[in-house]
């Protein structure tokens, strides 16, 4: 029954191959290939919730020699996010790419991206993580340049080169770990790693590599052009999921493998970078003239929030308090994932209708595309962190942790970030609600509008009201370092 864990990876891969072989049917294959892993992920989640972490030793070899796939609370949450987001985006993309020349390639790459994401979230082996990271990076790059414009290619190339640099840095960290501890299996490493030069250097190298991938300030510069110039469905998953993958790895490393190695000073450095990212990203988003660019900068800022959790987590002793903060982090990441993907989809709809996404010329959107405007509003609520979105709860808990740990310094950052987020979201809404003919007269509710609004609803309502599941799942850990 443990083979269950391979299905979230195998199914999209299999369908990707099918889509490559039958490009004419790729729309159907693509949607089905996104839906089937969702079922698998739901099964996995149900299992994990019911009976604790799962492990699949691939090939029957003991982890260490072989590779193990593991699913615990954290990975299940990420899997759920990625499966749900990709599902919705796939439905959207089936309309978006319905007549595009490259839809065959798109669907193959799309399914490969899902494969990569799921493989990454399930992987229990450091080197395998490297491979999945590379796979993820390459699929993301190729998807990002599907738009075909010069800017998108340029951005994709830059993204690729930096991604390579990041993964190489990660890889050398892996090499040092293997040198020091003789294994790559993360469960074993979780027990073995102790504070020392090996751990420190390896951790800082791996973290550095991952920080590039997750676009933390000042390594963020590749993100806005890449995310803003990709086709809308791609931007959605890039912002929502791909950067989260690196973040997920950082969490795994810091909290579970290198727990006890991480020093407060290191965490504070990351936190400060996160804080700068929050302020800078929000400010840049406020200045942005294009909708998708704004969304991309907003991603930089939102990622900053996630990194600001690091010093808080590091300051907390293992136990309920830390799980609270960790849950908040995850919840924030999830909410952002859903909200940002919804936001990008909505931006894509607007772009398709209006032919542009200049914010100042979006007047009349609310009239001609009410559902999309509503989506943007809902997603905006989640991005600002207003109730009833999950990010509100997360920010609440974040503030609470802040007060518990006495790290007051972050308070103004959160405040400023929230206000700036409110400013840019409502600036956008102001333009969207203004009268005008910017978007054209259509009043129909398109099929492509539904997934976006559903994603936004998940971010604002589902994650707001059923967020306790996050805190129930997070403590289920497959690794020795973290959790109860």
């Amino acid at each position, binding site marked *: 029954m443990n083979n269950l864990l391979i299905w979230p990876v195998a199914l999209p891969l299999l369908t990707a*191959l099918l889509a490559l072989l039958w490009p*004419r049917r790729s729309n159907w294959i693509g949607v089905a290939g996104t839906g089937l892993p969702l079922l698998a992920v739901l099964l996995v989640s149900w299992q994990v919730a019911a009976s604790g972490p799962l492990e699949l030793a691939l*090939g029957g070899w003991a982890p260490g*020699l*072989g590779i193990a796939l593991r699913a615990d609370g954290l990975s299940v949450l990420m899997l759920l996010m990625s499966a749900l987001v990709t599902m919705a985006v796939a439905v959207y993309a089936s309309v978006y790419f319905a007549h595009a020349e490259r839809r065959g390639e798109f669907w193959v790459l799309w399914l*490969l991206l899902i494969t990569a994401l799921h493989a990454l979230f399930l992987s229990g082996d450091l080197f395998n993580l490297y491979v999945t990271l*590379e796979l993820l990076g390459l699929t993301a790059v190729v998807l990002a340049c599907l738009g075909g414009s010069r800017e998108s290619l340029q951005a994709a190339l830059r993204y690729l080169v930096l991604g390579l640099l990041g993964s190489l840095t990660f890889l050398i960290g892996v090499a040092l770990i293997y040198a020091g501890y003789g294994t790559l299996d993360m469960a074993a490493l979780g027990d073995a790693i102790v504070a020392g030069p090996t751990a420190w*250097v390896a951790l800082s190298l791996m973290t550095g590599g991952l920080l590039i991938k997750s676009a933390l300030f000042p390594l963020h510069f590749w993100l806005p052009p890449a995310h803003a110039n990709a086709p809308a469905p791609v931007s959605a998953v890039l912002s929502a999921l791909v950067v989260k993958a690196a973040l997920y790895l950082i969490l795994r490393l810091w909290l579970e493998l290198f727990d006890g190695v991480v020093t407060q000073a290191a965490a504070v450095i990351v936190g400060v970078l996160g804080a700068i990212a929050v302020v800078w990203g929000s400010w840049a988003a406020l200045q942005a003239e294009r909708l998708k660019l704004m969304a991309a900068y907003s991603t930089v800022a939102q990622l900053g929030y996630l990194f600001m959790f690091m010093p808080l987590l590091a300051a907390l002793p293992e136990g309920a308090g830390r799980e609270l903060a960790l849950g908040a982090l995850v919840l924030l990441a999830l909410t952002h994932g859903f909200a940002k993907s919804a936001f990008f989809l909505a931006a894509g709809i607007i772009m398709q209708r209006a032919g542009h996404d200049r914010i100042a010329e979006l007047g009349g959107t609310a009239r001609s595309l009410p559902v999309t405007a509503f989506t943007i509003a809902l997603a905006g609520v989640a991005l600002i962190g207003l109730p009833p979105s999950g990010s509100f709860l997360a920010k609440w808990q974040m503030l609470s942790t802040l007060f518990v740990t006495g790290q007051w310094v972050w308070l103004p950052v959160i405040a400023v970030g929230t206000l700036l987020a409110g400013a840019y979201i409502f600036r956008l809404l102001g333009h969207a609600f203004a009268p005008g003919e910017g978007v054209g007269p259509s009043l129909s509710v398109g099929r492509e509008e539904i997934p976006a609004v559903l994603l936004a609803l998940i971010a604002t309502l589902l994650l707001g009201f059923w967020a306790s599941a996050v805190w129930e799942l997070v403590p289920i850990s497959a690794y020795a370092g973290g959790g109860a």
Partner: protein
Amino acid sequence: MMSQSLTMLPDLVLAAMLIGLAWAALSSDDLRRGVVLFIAFGLLLAIVWARLHAPDLALAEAAIGAGLSGALLLVALRDEAGGKETAGRVSQVSRWMVDLFALIMACLIGWVLWLTMYAEPAERLAQLANSMLEHSGVSNPVTAVLLNYRAYDTLLELVVVLTAVLGVLVVGRERRGYRQAGPVFCGLVHWLVPLLIVTAGYLLWVGAHAPGGAFQAGATLAAAGIVLRLAGNDAAGLLDGMLLRWSLVAGIGLFLLVGLGVTINGGLFLQYPEAWSGSLILVIESAATASIAAALVLAYRGGRPDGWLSVADYDNNREVSR
């Protein structure tokens, strides 16, 4: 002591040459020079692999690292000629900062390596991997790791290759081909290509118990294709249309199907039945070789062949006519 430093000498020379070549390759302003130096660096590296008892790697490096990468880079130089990329100057301060950072990091990494390899070397997986060899179905430990212990990695790696190739296909059309080569070169080709194909087959076959395997074989096969293309065969020996797609898919598809297939009677994913594992690995490797070769050749061709989209053309034509 003396003898030790004497035995150290070739190593020292090798290391110094590596660093020197790398430095030269990277600091050269002339790209062509840099690429050539890089290829030399790759070949030198192959020697180092051999020196470190890694013959599989030496083969792979020669074929892939130096050979294929070099070919790709060299061919890319041709593209570079047209475009002018304005190279923004990096300020002196940031240059110093980067240097300092690199120095510190190198020292740190070196320190850790010294600690882990010299001061208190750890027990790693060697023992285990070698002792499990008999259950793996092959006798070449590297192949065992690649296709049995860590077969999942290899599967995903094939996916990486596929992705990269798809990317290449998506980005643009393939390069113009070469003129039909002259007779001398043609004669060479007639001689070389079969040799390479045979070599590839051999490498594939021998991979089970000696250095070699799918990657090396695939790269060799790809080399055959490259030679063909250089000789003026634009398709570089590749098939068109659906068959091309099938050949790209074959490696991963078979790998995956085998991996899933073994779960039917109760095994875990990729857990070959012990009796069958040798044959299964061979089957997988064969398919993978084909896929890798196809992929690498496509990558060399540098874009979408004309026939790639014909499979999907039906819809596109309809769209245009509407």
